[in-house]
């Protein structure tokens, strides 16, 4: 058994996502997802419902009326916002795991995933790109291959990094050369095993190499750029640092300029603060600024 075979064997034992994620994704693909349908999906999860109500109540400090139903919460917070919280909490509970080889704690990897997902949303808004929910999901999951690979590359990490530095090749290419597979392809295999839609699988598989996708899509390009920007900002930057290559193709296809990247970056911090508040144990009442 080669190391690659051992790694691939882990794909089949990787935890499955809660059923609800699939259901949320189905709802999401419908135009103007009706909140009632989303509520139908999440109301069976008491912890999640409680979190959403808590968020709704903490966002309007001073108002005497307390929100007590998901529908009321949706009026206060907005459907998309609730979708974001719901999806992030579900994936959080399933995938908050460390990637030891990369020197990433569960916390850091999770922060990187959230930062990338929120950045994808910011970029979609700035560039007028649709399918925000699907792209958000892809961005949230794009690095889950690191959870598996992190267990295998602890010993070879220095060799991989040296190879990347000496030959000036991107880190994921060095991963492929040393262990036979990279974290992006591995993440795609997991999403495929979960029977996720092809556009999500592709956005994960090609997030470092959008130009190698059979057919490049805005989703792949957005996940690629969002990943780069969240690493640059330092969210979940591992031992490999910024040893990745931005795609010329993505930049051209999306007409990305320096000013777009800087504007998007300036919006990321507040977006992250807003979501992070929801994942803190003690949710101190404070006024949330909604996007």
């Amino acid at each position: 058994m080669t190391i690659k075979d051992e790694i691939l064997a882990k794909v089949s034992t990787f935890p499955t996502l809660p059923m609800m994620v699939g259901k949320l994704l189905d709802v999401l693909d419908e135009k103007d997802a009706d909140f009632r349908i989303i509520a139908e999906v999440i109301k069976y999860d008491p912890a999640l419902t409680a979190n959403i109500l808590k968020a709704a109540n903490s966002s309007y400090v001073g108002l005497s009326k307390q929100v007590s139903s998901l529908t009321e919460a949706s009026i206060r917070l907005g459907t998309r916002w609730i979708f974001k919280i719901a999806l992030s909490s579900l994936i959080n509970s399933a995938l908050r795991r460390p990637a030891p080889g990369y020197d990433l704690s569960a916390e850091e990897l999770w922060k990187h995933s959230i930062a990338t997902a929120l950045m994808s949303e910011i970029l979609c808004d700035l560039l007028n790109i649709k399918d925000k929910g699907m792209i958000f999901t892809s961005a949230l999951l794009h690095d889950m291959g690191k959870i598996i690979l992190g267990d295998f590359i602890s010993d070879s990490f220095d060799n991989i990094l040296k190879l990347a530095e000496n030959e000036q090749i991107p880190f994921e290419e060095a991963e492929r050369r040393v262990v036979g597979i990279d974290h992006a392809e591995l993440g795609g295999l997991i999403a495929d095993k979960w029977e996720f839609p092809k556009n999500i699988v592709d956005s994960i598989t090609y997030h470092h190499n959008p130009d190698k996708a059979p057919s490049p899509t805005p989703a792949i390009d957005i996940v690629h750029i969002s990943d780069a920007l969240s690493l640059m900002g330092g969210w979940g930057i591992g031992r490999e640092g910024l040893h990745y290559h931005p795609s010329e193709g993505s930049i051209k296809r999306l007409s990305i300029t320096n000013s777009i990247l800087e504007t998007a970056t300036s919006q990321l911090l507040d977006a992250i603060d807003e979501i992070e508040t929801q994942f803190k144990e003690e949710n101190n009442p404070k006024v949330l600024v909604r996007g």
Partner: protein
Amino acid sequence: MSNVTIGISEIYVTNKPNEELITYSLGSCIGVTIYDPVAKIGGMIHYMLPLSKVSPEKAKTKPGMFADTGIPTMLKSLFGMGAIKDRLIVKAAGGAQLMDQNNVFNIGERNFLIFRKLMWKNNILIKAADVGGSISRTLRLEMNTGRVTIKTGQKVKEL
């Protein structure tokens, strides 16, 4: 010794000798330490972007997000506490880059460029800088001694 973590877009100034200021995970962002060894007043900023013109509203609530609003704010606070300009020891770290060939992603480089301009305009020397490359850095300033260190991976060096 008590540790003070400086988050992204934060500015912190102090005159407490028992404090150690730390900022983690500098990618393309830049961490700057400014220290007056006589008054033992110093501070740290962790800024993300060079110029506030991309978002003047954010600059009002978080001046530390941008070099052009954060550095003047930091200097003003230091002077307000009693630091003297001619004594300031300024050091910087970060400004890393992706393996970029087209320069659209050159936020790290621009971050340092603007910083140098700002220092030059204010007639302040940059004593040392460890910037660029594709590595992540953690920056520390010991308030008691003014010692500045940078950590990348397991390696620590003095700046």
